[in-house]
């Protein structure tokens, strides 16, 4: 075998371009896979670090569900629970730094700061606070503050400086002296480095509350966290709360990235799939070309397994070199990917992680895939009978069904690889990720279905090839003879044609599918805000503005303002009843809710009611005891008009009657909000005020009124945002992600192009004599060139059209599975489809130009003598 191996190298060397293209195909596939793995690992590391930074040594966090926070009594109950060694309460609020004397006032609001009111004694026991300079807060401090290094740098603040924080109207601005500077951004990712620590009592005074937003707990030795959870469940009866551990926080952060990571891996799988087509065709061509050589070897006594071994050895070499090159390329691709997405999230992403595991996985998948794609050609080579081989010479024929069997093998290899590296959904994610939480999981089933769908499309291609060829040939009918011969040539080996076009189908399907998803998400972003917000502008506050605050009336009095509708967002403890083992089981899940003024919505004609009368439903909301539910939640939880929804807001359950079901509702952090009236929000759910106001202007007076209102709003620390700009910002961020995925999917199209180049070259090589006969019979070199290019055109059209159709189906699936949970509407992305079709045809024709040149330029005499 060792001596025979030199034959394997020579065979690869004899077709350098083909071998290079095959390695390039597998390298690109592995590169995208490695980039996905590396980017995923980097994101995981960043998430772990962010979660660890935020939670410190905390074993369990008790978080307030209501805006008013956990009361002092509840904090005492928690602190006194058996098994608690340390209880560190904290109050987290956003506010603005008051303008300093030497600062010139700006019309635009500065970025807010996050204030964390902490217990100076307990907090350091659970959270490391490494200082760049100064000291930590002490028990006696009242007007002292710690700031982060980032905030210090941004605002030019040093130890000993005084900062003034805006509080409630009653409290007014309060001054604090900076006594220490915490290294870096501090522990809260959402604060984006703008973080101020002050004593808890001072923070409560500043923000006019006696509650806390969370209590971090250290568990006493000998007590498990689960035991403590059980203890707290018994102890806390009066206020709703959420429990989370470090891994829960990491899980929820990971869940936000799971869709993106899954999409990256899906694209990587598609590129690898396209690469597998390339490898398979290459090895098939090599076997076909070497039929006579193989026959000679067999006649000379080489066994079948030796012949198979030769082919697999070539595959191994291609796979190893291609995969190694892919890993190198993948590091660069991962860096590009991370830098592209890095700026769009709060968590800082470092340089791509190159772990031995991800390198090994990428190499393993690359080589395994190459071997899997080569098994069938190798098996076929081993089956060549010596006599038949010597008699026949080169042959491109094979049993189509046998040839397509390999696809299942390749699918299996990729499926196993996908299962191994797929981002796992976290079952422990208790905080807000109950059965109703959107985006809670990233199931492998869905992408595998997508992947299987692509496989089925390719497997069906040989059967549909006849009619497809006739239809795709129509645009070329003007060149009747060339078109006829081109179609005949493509029918010659249907399985090879199907595999070649299959790679293009799969790649373009991915492009169209991503285009479909991107368009729907963008579209929903704008239409959905317009459907649920009664106005064209939002005035956003960094903390709830009390409904009794005169701000609303003062702003509403601005000339040209028609209405100013307050909206508050908050979480509610929804008692969800599910069926377990045939029995109803109740669980409390966090459901996001919005407080609205029903009358404003009625006047403005917002919300698309699917059930219930708009006038009476919105009226009932203002009267209290009623709730309007979005369709997504109604479908998931089986809620109908007239049902009662229960909420665990206190010792006894509170009930609201469902008075309407709407197509879309106000978007909250991770799901659509249920809509309640302000009276219920304030009295039952502990809401303290509005998070934003929706502004409606009098027709024709918007431009002048807006200037006046925006200026007025800024004086109340309200940030004005045009509704179009809000949806545009969301759309832009999503576009950025989809562009990245598109770019990666285009790599698959490029790999498909390499495959086509190989196939056209092989096709020309196989037909040298035939082309010679055509030339001898009177065909011009231009006609021959045209014949090959038309072949490519026909193939490109089939690939592009079938790819577009399959892509639309996959896109519809992706849209229906998407975790935004806003009930997206499927709408074909005609621009993406048009571009994909043009690009598919273009890449196919481009891939054929060189082989077509070879076919048309060759000597007729040599062609006729060719064996």
């Amino acid at each position: 075998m060792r001596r025979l191996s030199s034959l394997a190298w020579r065979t690869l060397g004899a077709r350098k371009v083909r071998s290079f293209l095959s390695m390039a195909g597998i390298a690109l596939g592995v590169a995208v896979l490695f980039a996905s793995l590396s980017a995923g690992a980097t994101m995981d590391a960043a998430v772990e670090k962010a979660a660890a930074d935020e939670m410190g040594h905390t074993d369990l966090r008790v978080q307030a569900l209501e805006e008013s926070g956990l009361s002092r009594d509840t904090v005492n109950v928690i602190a006194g629970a058996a098994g608690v060694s340390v209880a560190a309460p904290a109050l987290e609020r956003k506010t603005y730094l008051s303008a300093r004397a030497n600062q010139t006032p700006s019309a635009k609001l500065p970025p807010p700061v996050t204030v964390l009111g902490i217990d100076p004694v307990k907090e350091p026991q659970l959270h490391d606070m490494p200082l760049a300079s100064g000291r930590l807060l002490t028990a006696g401090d009242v007007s002292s503050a710690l700031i982060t290094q980032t905030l210090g740098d941004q605002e030019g603040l040093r130890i000993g400086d005084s900062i003034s924080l805006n509080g409630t109207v009653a409290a007014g601005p309060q001054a604090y002296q900076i006594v220490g500077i915490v290294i870096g951004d501090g522990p809260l990712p959402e604060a984006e480095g703008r973080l101020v620590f002050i004593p808890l009592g001072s923070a409560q005074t500043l923000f006019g509350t006696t509650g806390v937003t969370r209590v971090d707990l250290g568990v006493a030795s000998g007590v498990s966290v689960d035991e403590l959870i059980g203890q707290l469940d018994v102890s806390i009866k009066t206020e709703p709360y959420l429990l989370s551990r470090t891994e829960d926080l990491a899980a929820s952060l990971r869940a936000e990235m799971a869709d993106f990571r899954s999409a990256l891996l899906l694209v990587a799988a598609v590129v690898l799939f396209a690469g597998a087509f390339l490898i398979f065709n290459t090895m098939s061509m090599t076997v076909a070309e070497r039929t006579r050589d193989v026959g000679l070897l067999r006649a000379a006594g080489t066994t079948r397994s030796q012949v198979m071994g030769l082919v697999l050895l070539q595959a191994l070499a291609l796979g190893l070199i291609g995969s190694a090159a892919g890993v190198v390329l993948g590091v660069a691709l991962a860096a590009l990917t991370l830098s592209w997405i890095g700026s769009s999230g709060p968590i800082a992403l470092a340089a791509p992680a190159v772990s031995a595991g991800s390198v090994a996985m990428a190499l393993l998948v690359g080589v395994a895939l190459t071997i899997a794609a080569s098994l069938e050609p190798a098996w076929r080579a081993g089956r060549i009978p010596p006599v038949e081989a010597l008699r026949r010479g080169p042959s491109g024929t094979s049993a189509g069904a046998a040839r397509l069997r390999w696809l299942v093998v390749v699918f299996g290899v990729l499926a196993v690889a996908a299962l191994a590296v797929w981002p796992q959904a976290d079952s422990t994610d208790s905080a807000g990720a109950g059965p109703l939480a959107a985006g809670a999981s990233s199931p492998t089933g869905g992408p595998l279905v997508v992947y299987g769908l692509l496989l089925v499309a390719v497997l069906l291609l040989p059967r549909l090839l006849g009619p497809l060829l006739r239809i795709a040939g129509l645009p070329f009918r003007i060149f009747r003879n060339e078109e006829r011969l081109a179609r005949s040539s493509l029918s010659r080996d249907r399985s090879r044609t199907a595999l070649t076009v299959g790679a293009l189908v799969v790649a373009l399907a991915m492009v169209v599918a991503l285009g479909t998803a991107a368009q729907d998400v963008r579209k929903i972003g704008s239409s959905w805000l317009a459907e649920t917000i009664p106005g064209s502008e939002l005035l956003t506050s960094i903390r709830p503005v009390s409904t009794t605050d005169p701000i609303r009336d003062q702003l509403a009095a601005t000339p040209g303002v028609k209405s100013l509708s307050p909206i508050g967002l908050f979480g509610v403890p929804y008692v969800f009843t599910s069926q377990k083992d045939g029995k109803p089981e109740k669980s409390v899940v966090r459901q996001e809710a919005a407080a609205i003024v029903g009358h404003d919505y009625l006047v403005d004609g917002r919300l698309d009611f699917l059930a219930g009368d708009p006038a009476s439903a919105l009226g009932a909301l203002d009267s209290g005891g009623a709730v309007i539910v979005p369709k997504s939640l109604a479908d998931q939880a089986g809620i109908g008009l007239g049902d009662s929804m229960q909420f665990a807001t206190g010792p006894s359950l509170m009930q609201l009657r469902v008075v309407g079901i709407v197509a879309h509702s106000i978007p909250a952090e991770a799901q659509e909000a249920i809509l309640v009236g302000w009276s219920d929000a304030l009295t039952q759910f502990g809401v303290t005020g509005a998070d934003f106001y929706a502004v409606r202007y009098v027709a024709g007076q918007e431009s002048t009124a807006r200037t006046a209102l925006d200026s007025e709003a800024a004086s109340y620390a309200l940030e004005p945002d045009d509704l179009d700009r809000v949806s545009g910002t969301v759309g832009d961020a999503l576009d950025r992600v989809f562009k990245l995925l598109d770019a990666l999917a285009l790599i698959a199209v490029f790999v498909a192009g390499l495959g086509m180049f190989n196939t056209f070259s092989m096709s020309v090589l196989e037909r040298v004599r035939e082309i010679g006969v055509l030339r001898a019979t009177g065909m011009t070199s231009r006609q021959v060139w045209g014949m090959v290019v038309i072949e490519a055109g026909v193939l490109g059209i089939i690939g592009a059209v079938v790819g577009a159709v399959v892509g639309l189906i996959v896109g519809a699936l992706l849209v229906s599975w998407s975790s935004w949970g806003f009930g997206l509407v499927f709408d074909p992305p005609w621009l993406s489809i048009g571009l994909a079709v043009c690009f598919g045809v273009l890449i196919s024709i481009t891939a054929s130009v060189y082989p077509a040149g070879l076919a048309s330029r060759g000597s007729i005499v040599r062609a006729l003598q060719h064996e």
Partner: protein
Amino acid sequence: MRRGEFVALMGPSGSGKSTLLQLLGGLDRPTGGDVILDGEVVSHLSDTDATRLRREKTGFVFQFFNLIPLLDVYENVALPFTIAGEDPRRGDAAARIRDVLEILDLVGREHNRPDQLSAGEQQRVALARALVGRPAILLADEPTGNLDYATGGEILDELWRSCDQRGQTIVLVTHDARAAAYADRVLVVGDGRIRDEIELGRRTTHEAGPLIARLAQLGL
């Protein structure tokens, strides 16, 4: 060569028989000298003109048939019309194809693919394809080299009939004296030159004996 003449080219391997045939058919260009066909110098034509020459004035028959495997019998025979952009199912083209299929006894086989035919039938299809355009000259490169004795004889009979009955000019390259004996005249080629010329004349019987004796004298 005269119009309607049947000429055979003989000579040892590498003597230049096939090269001469390729030059005559415009498949290759001579490094010296000229090829004059129908009074026109065809040895230095552009690719397009050479293609037109092949399409309009020459027909080829090869040793290995060289049929297009994807096309059926009718389509293979119709190829010269198809390439020229004519509809082979209509008008004069259809009539000519029908005629040639009848002459070569291929009626009923029109929809068979080459791999469904015997070697002799395949060569008859190749011959039909070469004759269907009624070329000024038919160039046959060892057309019986890949056939058994009886089948080869049938093909040679067909060639001779097309020459004798329909005035087809034929140049036949062969190693086989029995095949060459069908010709009116035999040119013996050696080292790229015509070394000898054997005038046999038009005959209804194609006895090879005298030719073999003559060739033996020439050491072939």
